[in-house]
């Protein structure tokens, strides 16, 4: 294998291109895919031309160190004001970066309270955050970060290289049980030669290290924590009222679990005071209420737009809807370990009985894209739309489905779809469709905890699941379809697929890899590893007076946002 010069990953700036080349060159294909996906997914505003203003505003920075790329026509951005953000979640379990498991909380809230070593720009290149520059040694095993001078935590304490060491020790402490500790597995040593220099050594090179462990948002494991704050309030309280180092600070008195909290501008943020004075995060769990709250002007922005409200918001000319192609896939699993679902004819009968477009129209308000595999539409270099793919053996064909159902003897079989959805609309639609081939479908609705246990244990007939957005969509194949994949709980085992999946991680020839992914997709379709159903896009919405929003897939960095009112 060719030797790579890992020094190209050194910063003050690493372009997406470089990240991708290195990722490809070193077999971190998933990571490269994610990067490429996000590039293709440059958010497209679908309404109100005013909002086309992408990175319009950057805080007026005394230090001159503008964190977010792209220069701004000065004088446009206004300071001040309160942004009310409607947030769609039942309750926020914790804001402690090392403990957050709720993805949208990490990407959209924690990333505004905490800075990290590096951050993403809108093209998903890496740019400085707390580290002004960094170097990576030639064999990719040693990272040296040079921190900015004069960094501060929200409580006024200086933020120094030692704080990263403390954070490392805290995250990896077994008693602390951080779900992200595994992202630091490769670290063999972490040292601070002086207050502003941090040296991290890895046991082996790993291209996504900066993104998965050191970035603002996803890099939860190494997001620096104030030691004094932890000592003063303890881990549990810290999860409620964290002391961070990002552009906004949490107002402790405002925190009400299940209601939300307020964040105010941090005057001493290295990038300068953010433009907004304040952000009010208001939790609105019910999707239709979330849409009403935006339309009624109770909130200025929604973190994620529920599918049921997309048409309505598009029709509202005071509101801008920003939509980016998804990096996910969803399908129907049939458990190989439970006859008759070990029989490919039985699975194929089910898949062919599902009219994908009708399913999307009925179950998802028509707001998704039919899927023919696990390659998401955002991965432009490898994704092939259904209409160009050619023959998809899984595709809808009711006559063939009926014949296969007859042949495999599944007519009259009863089957349960395991679901954790509060609104099992998709399952209901499937039930109706599968009745056509004589299946007696029941829906077994469980709460998350119980669902996860059953799913992990492979204790189900069928369920609808897939890969949700992640920093590494290679997971979306490997984890589900490799015989040793951690989320392969349904017993799929095809040595050819294993071989191809391993192959995609080893080669750096893009054409070759594309062919391999397509080959994998063909096998998965034929095997009916999943009956692939759909992909959903990432959507956010705000009033047209909300300016300066920079769309970075899966993130909501809000320091550049300002209000024109």
């Amino acid at each position: 294998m060719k030797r790579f010069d890992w020094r190209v990953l050194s910063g003050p700036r690493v372009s997406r291109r470089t990240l991708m080349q290195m990722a490809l060159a070193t077999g971190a294909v998933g990571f490269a895919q994610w990067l490429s996906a996000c590039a293709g997914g440059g958010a497209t505003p679908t309404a109100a031309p005013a909002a086309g203003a992408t990175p319009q505003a950057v805080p007026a920075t005394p230090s001159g160190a503008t964190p977010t790329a792209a220069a701004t026509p000065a004088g446009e951005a206004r300071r001040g004001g309160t942004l009310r953000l409607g947030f769609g979640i039942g309750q926020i379990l914790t804001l402690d970066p090392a403990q957050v498991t709720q993805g949208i909380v990490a990407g959209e809230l924690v990333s505004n309270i905490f800075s990290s070593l590096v951050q993403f720009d809108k093209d998903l290149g890496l740019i400085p955050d707390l580290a002004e520059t960094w170097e990576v040694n030639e064999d990719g095993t040693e990272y040296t970060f040079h921190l900015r001078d004069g960094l501060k935590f929200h409580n006024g304490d200086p933020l120094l290289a030692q704080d990263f060491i403390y954070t490392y020790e805290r995250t990896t402490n077994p008693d602390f049980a951080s779900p992200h500790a595994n992202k630091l597995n490769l670290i063999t040593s972490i040292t601070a030669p002086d207050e502003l220099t941090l040296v991290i050594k890895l046991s082996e090179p790993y291209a996504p290290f900066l993104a998965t462990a050191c970035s603002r948002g996803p890099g939860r494991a190494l997001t620096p924590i104030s030691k004094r704050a932890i000592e003063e309030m303890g881990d549990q309280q810290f999860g409620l009222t964290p002391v961070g180092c990002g552009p906004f600070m949490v107002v402790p008195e405002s925190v009400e679990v299940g209601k939300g909290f307020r964040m105010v501008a941090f005057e001493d943020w290295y990038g300068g005071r953010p433009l907004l004075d304040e952000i009010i995060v208001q939790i609105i769990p019910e999707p239709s209420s979330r849409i009403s709250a935006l339309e009624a002007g109770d909130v200025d922005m929604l973190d994620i737009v529920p599918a049921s409200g997309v048409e309505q918001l598009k029709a509202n000319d005071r509101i801008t809807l920003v939509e980016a192609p998804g990096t996910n896939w969803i399908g129907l699993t049939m458990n190989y370990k439970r006859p008759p679902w070990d029989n490919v004819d039985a699975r194929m009968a089910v898949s062919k009985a599902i009219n994908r477009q009708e399913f999307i129209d009925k179950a998802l308000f028509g707001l998704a894209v039919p899927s023919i595999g696990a390659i998401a539409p955002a991965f432009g270099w490898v994704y092939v739309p259904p209409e160009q793919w050619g023959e998809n053996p899984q595709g809808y064909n009711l006559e063939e489905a009926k014949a296969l159902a007859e042949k495999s003897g599944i007519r009259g079989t009863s089957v349960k779809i395991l679901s954790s959805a509060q609104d099992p609309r998709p399952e209901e639609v499937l039930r109706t469709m599968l009745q056509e081939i004589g299946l007696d479908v029941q829906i077994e609705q469980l709460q998350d905890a119980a669902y996860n246990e059953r799913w992990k244990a492979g204790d189900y007939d069928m369920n609808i699941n897939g890969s949700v957005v992640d920093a590494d969509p290679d997971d979306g194949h490997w984890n589900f379809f490799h015989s040793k994949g951690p989320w392969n709980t349904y017993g799929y085992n095809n040595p050819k697929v294993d071989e191809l999946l391993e192959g995609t991680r080893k080669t750096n020839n893009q054409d070759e890899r594309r062919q391999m992914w397509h080959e994998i997709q063909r096998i998965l379709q034929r095997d009916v590893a999943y009956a692939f159903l759909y992909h959903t896009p990432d959507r956010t919405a705000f009033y047209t007076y909300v300016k300066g929003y920079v769309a970075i897939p899966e993130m909501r960095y809000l320091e550049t946002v300002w209000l024109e009112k």
Partner: protein
Amino acid sequence: MTQYIVRRLIHAVFIVWGCATLVFFMIRLIPGDPVLQMLGPEYTPEAAEALRHKLGLDQPIYVQYLKWFSSVLRGDLGDSIATGETVVGAIKTGFPKTLSITVLSFLIALAIALPAGIVAALKRNSLIDYLVSVLAFAGVSMPGFWFGIILIILFAVQLRWLPAVGYASLTKEGFWPWLSHLLLPSLAVGTGYAAILMRFVRAGLLEVLGMDYVRTARAKGLAEWTVIARHALRNSLIPVVTVAGIQLALLLSGAVVIETVFSIRGLGRILVGAIFDKDYPIVQGVILLIAVIFVMANLIVDIIYTFLDPRIRYG
């Protein structure tokens, strides 16, 4: 009477203790491990073990029970295992909201049900009686969440008179913000409730109006209004108070659906969220409170009987 109340309160202690104990064990029978719930699908067994130990969930269940029970006696309901807030804190933030909705919707219900019920009874089988009955039927049949959404769309989205969601504290944010956030949810709850009450008021009054003592009162030449207000209505209220008491207790234990539609984190949402998250301490604490509310509501209803009907005496 005092003796009666004391005896009832002693009973109440046992009832509440029984409920709390039952819930303590039942919630642990529901499938789903709180530790796995918290760690998410990517958990490692080591992290799960560590967390289980930290939360004391690795101890035998009777040890957990004794520990919990002895802290309850000391007034400590523990901490939420999902979010880390104290259970007492969660109740303190949730209860005022639920109480506000309950009181306001109760007032709205009374304001609708009493006049409407009386008129319907007095003008029995008239057009107005039919109209009131139809409206009552509609009120009972209309799901609260649906009516809530309609109210939001009308008053918040279209007219922009009132906020669509959320809650403002009476003490911190003032009277109007508080009231404006509560009007819609209370109306949604109150109308359904009014419909039920109204039917009881009407039925109760009709029954009483045929009684001898009403005829006697009329024969004495009392004004019709005095007959109704002093003699008939008061005696017809016993079933109404019974129903009102139960309904009130139900409301106080949280109108989950309405709280969800209006994004108000009252007791109902706290409880349901905790059940989903397998947040044992919160579930136990909130159920304990609800048990107390029910027992007290029943006691108060029984005491009110004695005022309405002097023949009822407890000894």
